[in-house]
């Protein structure tokens, strides 16, 4: 897309007219509004509770302290246990890694089979899969709990990973199917003539060509799985609760005095992984949004 070329002509007048001042005023006010929660989170997380009780959430900290961060990480109470949310962090890492690798591999294989091999009836299957993406998760919740229990996977790490594989398959398949549709069929035909089989062409030809879409898919999966709450809550089991669930437990189940600074530090810690991915990946993140627009 030639975005810059399209726009070069549009505004000749670059000096500040009242209209342009208005534009900047609107954009900067909006930016302030969007940044406000992040700012309040950050300053609150380094204040003492005494200072928070004074009640100015916008003020910069007078007594800078990182104690709330230490408490949030290693000694805040999530229900009955008081080990902070670090356990949730490592659980989320353990869930997110396989829940990124397997869905990408499966999505790539599905997209490859759909785009190049086109087995009979596969398009119908794909249409059904995409329709399934719109089924609200609550509709499948109870039967899935029963199925997972029957398989002996309910409340286990492989169980929650399997659930993520199932729920991410529509969008992952769509992503790779569309990507492979842009690769010339002649390339595939040539590989066939050279005697390549299904998996050989997939592993030696298609996967190495898929780096850009794999990056997009990985960004989507890691942030999506990391930010998931409801699936982790139901299927992960007490030993594997992801960070989002533990965060909610820290904040919404505490009794007595609420430690707002610790809460905010815990919230930032939980958001750190997806935010880092977002700030580092930039345009890749946006590409994923546009490509995954059918996600249910």
């Amino acid at each position, binding site marked *: 897309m030639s975005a810059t*070329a*399209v*726009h070069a*002509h549009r*505004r000749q007048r670059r000096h500040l007219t009242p209209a342009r001042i208005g*534009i900047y005023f*609107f*954009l900067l006010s*909006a930016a302030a509004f*969007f940044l*406000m*929660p992040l700012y*309040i989170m950050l300053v609150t997380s380094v204040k003492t509770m005494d200072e928070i009780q*004074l*009640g100015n*959430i916008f003020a910069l900290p007078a007594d800078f302290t990182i104690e709330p961060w230490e408490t949030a990480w290693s000694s805040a109470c999530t229900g009955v246990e008081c080990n902070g949310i670090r356990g949730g962090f490592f659980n989320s890492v353990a869930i997110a890694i396989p829940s990124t690798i397997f869905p990408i591999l*499966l999505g790539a294989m*599905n997209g490859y*089979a759909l785009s190049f*091999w086109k*087995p009979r009836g*596969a398009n119908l299957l794909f249409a*059904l*899969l995409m*329709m*399934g993406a*719109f089924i*609200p998760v*609550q*509709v*499948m*919740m*109870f*039967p899935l709990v029963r199925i997972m229990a029957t398989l002996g996977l309910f409340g286990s790490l492989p169980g929650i990973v399997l659930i993520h594989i*199932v729920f991410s*398959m529509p969008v992952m398949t769509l992503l790779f199917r569309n990507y492979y*549709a*842009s690769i010339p069929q002649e390339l595939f035909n040539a590989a066939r003539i050279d005697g390549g089989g*299904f998996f050989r062409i997939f592993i030696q030809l298609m996967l190495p060509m898929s780096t850009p879409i794999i990056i997009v898919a990985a960004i989507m999966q890691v*942030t999506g799985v990391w*930010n998931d*709450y*409801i699936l982790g809550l139901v299927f992960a089991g007490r030993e594997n609760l992801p960070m989002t669930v533990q*965060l*909610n437990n820290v*904040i919404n189940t505490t009794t007595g005095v609420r430690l*707002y600074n610790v*809460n*905010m530090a815990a919230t930032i810690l*939980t*958001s750190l992984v*997806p*935010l880092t991915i*977002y700030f580092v990946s930039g345009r890749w993140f*946006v590409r994923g*949004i*546009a*490509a995954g*627009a059918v996600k*249910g």
Partner: protein
Amino acid sequence: MNKKLNRLRRQAVSWAALVPMALVVIAGLGTALWSLKISFSSSRTFPADDFIGFAQYARLLDNDRWLLSLQNLAVYGVLFILAALVIGFLLAVFIDQKIKGEGVLRTIFLYPYAMSFVATGLVWQWMLNPEVGIQQTVRQLGYPDFKFDWIIDQDRVIYTIVIATVWQASGLVMALLLAGLRGIDEEIWKAARIDGIPPWRVYFSIVLPMLAPSFATAFVLLFTAVVKLFDSVVSMTQGGPGIASEVPAKFIMDHLFGRANIALASAGSIMMLLTVLVLVAPYFYARTRSAGRKQPS
């Protein structure tokens, strides 16, 4: 080698590769049918095999908490989608004016979308808390009568969830519409300038209709977020004060796991599914038709 046999082999391998996909489709349809069956039974904690017709649906429509959930979701859905579309559109149009620092501003407007609804819900809960949040701060700044306690106000609590989630999702709309704006032919702007049409008219009468596909995509994403609305409510209000901010997804989860009434919960989930299908089916139909002709990128 026999040509027919070859083709059969070729089909067999690719079919084998699609077995996981077939399993997922079967699981999706199967579990939905299973829930449908449960919704016609008298199941409580465990699924029962009887058939009691639409009794659970009748009970649902007689349940104040469910009706309030539906009402909340309708109010929330309309406000959230409208506000996110309007704000996202304005942000996209203003960013599209060849401004300085476009990259920074875009990053700022989209970052909330990278966070989980649980995390952002907790931040907003804290900012909207009248005792320590914005209300208290403004009072200390010399306005002792300032009042902003919607989050503990039964009639207004749903608006606080709108505010928090619009803040989170507007950047998404902006990103989608900005991509749409950048794809519009520059000839349109030239022609409009020659005809002396003011830019705002061009935006309203020409650009807005041309952005219809981007708006449709944004709408579907926002709509699915509305139906799924759960995380934000749990983290911001837990359905309170009282039951004032209950939503269907939470009603279903509570009846599945807390209140052990899986038949009623299943009836609720089937009603959610039907609503989604009625609203999304036209879009899905249009998309698959056009996807058959040209591949979307």
